[in-house]
């Protein structure tokens, strides 16, 4: 351990303080700390972090070397050849299983705090107004990007920088996709997302909000007005449990709850107009990133909050640090519990859940033990429920676009390079993979941007 030094710990606000507000939980490290941490990098490392750990192959060794030399601007310039928004990826990537999980130092001691360094570099660049370079050679061709989530951001950024004329179409009144409406302020401050979009605007990307592709403009119309169309519309349609009573009042999907809280700012109701019912005792069904975000938001709104999950602790998906933070903050966990029915004493508002107790069975397709019912049912009183059991690919565009092929999960079918069944139309991110991660969506964005550039250079 001593030979490779001690890993820097980013300062985290104490749980008792942070549950009272929506401000960021984990503070950004300072320059001196970043330099010291980056200097822990060992020479001649084969960089599994970059080659195996990172879906977009961020040049982590280069970044670490430059940071350790105090060359933060250069480190930023190196980073954005792979992730245009390090201040965002530094905050939301699942580092413990990706870059940091494959870090050589992980086996020798503690992995380098790559995420914390990346976040520092990204924020530093935002604060110091570092602009990104744009090709001075205009291609004279235009690209329509549909959806302004991580996949769309990358395609827009890469192609505009390469000299294309990019317009982003977004249905909502704020850009960012899940970064804006899903991931809460205390994990990813919205001013960061907004500033990243300012930067996109500064390099010439146009943004049209309130444009619902499929109805406002069809994909066909976009094709007639742009040389290429990229679909990055995500996996936003919530799944339902289909349990009796699921539609009583005060039962929300996580997307509705988080959209009200994050996008519509109903945690500031009545200053903001969108109302939000806040229960005294809230049950969140599910245990992924979405469930954690919903539970921690409910907690901050003053509720006693429970996570109800049909599998065990070890099977929880999502970032480990968020589970840890949720527990610190006082979210309670009920494992091997599956809701079988929702109850409403007054016939309107949810008042309780019938929970089937489960136990681990044989491994399923994912290799995790399949939860099997024990037959034991318990009643659990709550006055609000949030379901966070997953999402389907957004069906709006496939439904409105004849000829656009989807598979039986509703995912848009593409070739290895992101071409859909319609010539000139490309897709990437969650709409292609189903619910995934920010960095995977960005990886798709990079791949498809390259394909579009190649295809358009030919014609």
């Amino acid at each position: 351990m001593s030979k490779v030094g001690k890993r820097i710990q980013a300062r985290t606000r104490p749980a008792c303080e942070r549950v009272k507000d929506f401000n960021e939980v984990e503070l950004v490290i300072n320059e001196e700390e970043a330099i010291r941490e980056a200097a822990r990098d060992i020479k001649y490392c084969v960089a599994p972090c970059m080659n195996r750990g990172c879906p977009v192959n961020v040049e982590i060794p280069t970044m670490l070397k430059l940071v350790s030399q105090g060359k933060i601007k250069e480190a930023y310039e190196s980073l954005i050849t792979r992730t245009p928004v390090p201040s965002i990826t530094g905050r939301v990537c699942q580092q413990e299983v990706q870059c940091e999980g494959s870090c050589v130092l992980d086996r020798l001691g503690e992995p380098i705090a790559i995420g914390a360094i990346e976040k520092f570099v990204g924020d530093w660049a935002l604060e110091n107004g570092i602009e990104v370079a744009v090709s001075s050679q205009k291609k004279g061709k235009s690209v329509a990007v549909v959806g302004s989530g991580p996949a769309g951001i990358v395609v827009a950024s890469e192609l505009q920088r390469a000299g294309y004329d990019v317009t982003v179409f977004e249905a909502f009144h704020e850009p960012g996709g899940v970064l804006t409406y899903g991931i809460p302020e205390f994990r990813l401050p919205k001013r960061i997302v907004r500033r990243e979009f300012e930067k996109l605007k500064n390099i010439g990307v146009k943004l049209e909000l309130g444009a619902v592709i499929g109805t406002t403009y069809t994909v066909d119309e976009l094709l007639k007005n742009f040389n290429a169309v990229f679909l990055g519309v995500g996996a936003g349609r919530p799944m339902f449990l289909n349990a009796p009573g699921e539609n009583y009042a005060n039962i929300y999907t996580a997307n509705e709850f988080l959209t009200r809280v994050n996008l519509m700012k109903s945690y500031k109701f009545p200053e903001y107009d969108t109302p939000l019912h806040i229960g005294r005792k809230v049950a969140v069904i599910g245990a992924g990133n979405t469930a954690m975000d919903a539970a921690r938001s409910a907690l901050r709104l003053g509720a006693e909050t429970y996570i109800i999950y049909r599998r065990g602790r070890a099977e929880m998906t999502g970032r480990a640090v968020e589970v840890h933070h949720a527990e610190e903050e006082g979210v309670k966990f009920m494992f091997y519990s599956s809701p079988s029915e929702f109850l409403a004493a007054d016939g309107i508002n949810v008042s309780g859940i019938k929970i089937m107790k489960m136990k681990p069975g044989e491994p399923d397709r994912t290799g995790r033990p399949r939860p099997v019912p024990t037959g034991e049912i318990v009643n659990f009183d709550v006055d609000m429920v949030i379901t966070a059991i997953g999402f389907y690919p957004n069906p709006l565009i496939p439904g409105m676009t004849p000829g656009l092929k989807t598979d039986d999960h509703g995912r848009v079918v593409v070739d290895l390079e992101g071409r859909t069944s319609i010539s000139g139309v490309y897709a990437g991110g969650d709409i292609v993979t189903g619910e995934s991660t920010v960095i995977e969506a960005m990886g798709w964005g990079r791949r498809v941007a390259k394909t579009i550039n190649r295809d358009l250079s030919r014609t």
Partner: protein
Amino acid sequence: MIEDFLKMHGKCYYSTTANPCIGGTVLDIAREGTILEKEELTTNIYEMKLYAPKIARAAHAGQFMLLMVDEKGERVPMTMVDWDSTQGWIDIVYQEVGTTTIKLTGHGVGDRLFYVAGPLGKPSRVGKFGRVVVIGGGVGVPAVYPIARTLKLQGNYVVSIIGAKTSNALVYEEKMKEVSDELIVTTDDGSRGLKGFTSDALRGLLLNGQEFNAMWSVGPTLMMKACSDVAAGKIPNSFASLNSLMVCGVGMCGACRVTVKDKILLTCVDGPEFISYDVNWKELAIRLKSYMREETVSLEMLRGADKL
């Protein structure tokens, strides 16, 4: 006013925020959401003409749009009552009931709404049915108007029943007359037309042996359910346009979910029009009651701010 916009920007206008010039329509996005006209049709019910070319150019009967009055506003759905795709405007009609609609009334001609989006939802399943009955209640009358108009244009024989609590609350009677072969008016108190509900008038028609191949109803949940019950077994096709609470309006949040034929569907993208016989009305009524308490808080705050 619209003419001015057109003159200013010629055939194809490229704003700084967006550029598409689709189908040769003027898409002056920088002005989108501007109020062109505003009229109080009767106490508390307003008609508003909005400049929204990109929505108007794609609008169909039965669809809606979303608007936010200001940055802190709610996303509220509004049925598109009328539109002109070449001039680029949309008419909406609303009743002043809550925070958003009160704020909306506080805005005048020339003001610009923070956000508009659309058209949203599936177009109404209008078509050549033969004899049809179209029912509207309250502000559901303007909402059903484009459906009646389209049905009439398609050559159907349109019988319309429109109703309100009292004569003073009745709007769009003249317009409905223009697009109907027969028009029946009802009021709860009998101050105009027949005394009773629209469903009573429908029952009367059916008892008299009148036959219809299709029915549309837009209005309060109770009215649509009552009409649906009366029509069951007698009118083969019955459509109702639901007024679920919405947040996102584009199929992502599930706030507007309804059970239709034992399946959970979303009013915003799978509707708003559903076959009325398949809708779980009881559940819809429950979900509409979700925000009574918060509405009061919000209104109190708005009124408090007015006093300042």
